[in-house]
């Protein structure tokens, strides 16, 4: 058995109103920033899975991402395998 560490990044699907992203955009002029647009705000989860293989571990993460960490109706997610720092 090995430990595999993942990050799951969840963002609102394109076309879904993202009021947090909009609020951040509205604050940009106060920071004198004029060349930033299309802000989307989501969430990130990092987790460790103990499994026989990486594909087995990834299947667990995929299941959690679909069922718990995101709502497929409104959000899209990506999974990244985190490589331990030496």
């Amino acid at each position, binding site marked *: 058995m090995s430990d595999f560490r993942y990050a799951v990044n969840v963002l609102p699907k394109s076309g*879904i*109103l993202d*009021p947090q992203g909009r609020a951040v955009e509205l604050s940009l002029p106060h920071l004198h920033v004029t060349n930033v647009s299309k802000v989307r705000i989501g969430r990130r989860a990092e987790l460790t899975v103990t499994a026989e293989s990486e594909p087995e571990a990834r299947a667990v993460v995929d299941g959690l991402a679909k069922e718990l960490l995101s*709502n*497929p*109706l*409104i959000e899209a997610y990506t999974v990244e395998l985190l490589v331990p720092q030496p």
Partner: protein
Amino acid sequence: MRIGVVTFPGSNSDVDSLNALAVAGVEPVSLWHESPDLKGVSGVILPGGFAYGDYIRAGVIARFSPVMGGVKEFAAAGGLVLGICNGFQVLAEAGLVPGALLRNRSLRFAGRLVNIKPDRLDSPFTRSANGAPMRVPVAHGEGCYYADEAMLDELEANGQVLFRYVHEDGTPALDPDEPANPNGSLRAIAGVCNSAGNVAGLMPHPERMSEAILGTDGGMQVVRSLIESAREWEAAGRPVAAPKTKVEAGR
């Protein structure tokens, strides 16, 4: 007649719901989130609040609690389930009613009185309503009803839209930025039901308008509808509700 009210950790409108049932003259039954046993009730209310702290997304952690196993079975067997506010969010996350509830368009918590109107008076949750706008409170941060255009069209065609936010004259508050629409809900949708019609969710709180001393008892139209339908369901020997279509939640 016994109607159950689920208490999740973080529920806060469970007591209001139990009280509204008592006012209507039925026996309110408390149901605990850790047990799938619905104690033989004839209908279930999932109340408002902040179940499991609303972590990740409102309603999603409650979806996996033991009681929801019992609620899912009850709903599949034709039992009547009404989710109010956070209860609506739980039902949507569980895939028991279609759509999703997004952060309010204003980014503000909406806590005030609004007007809603039943879209139809022949549903199990609106049959005792008089059809006029009802003044009821909202109290939520994530109540912006969302489904994609194709699903919205299908919901309307199937009669699955039960309530809309309206102006005082009863016209729907279709512009998501107007104050009569407290959260930016698409097509002013305040409440929907599943395709079989026996599971419904709505964001406003009819159970908090249950007695004249609270301002009006107009919300009892919804509570009484649920009770009458549950009574009829029991008298008919608990028939299974047949889904009319396949349109359900995204899950």
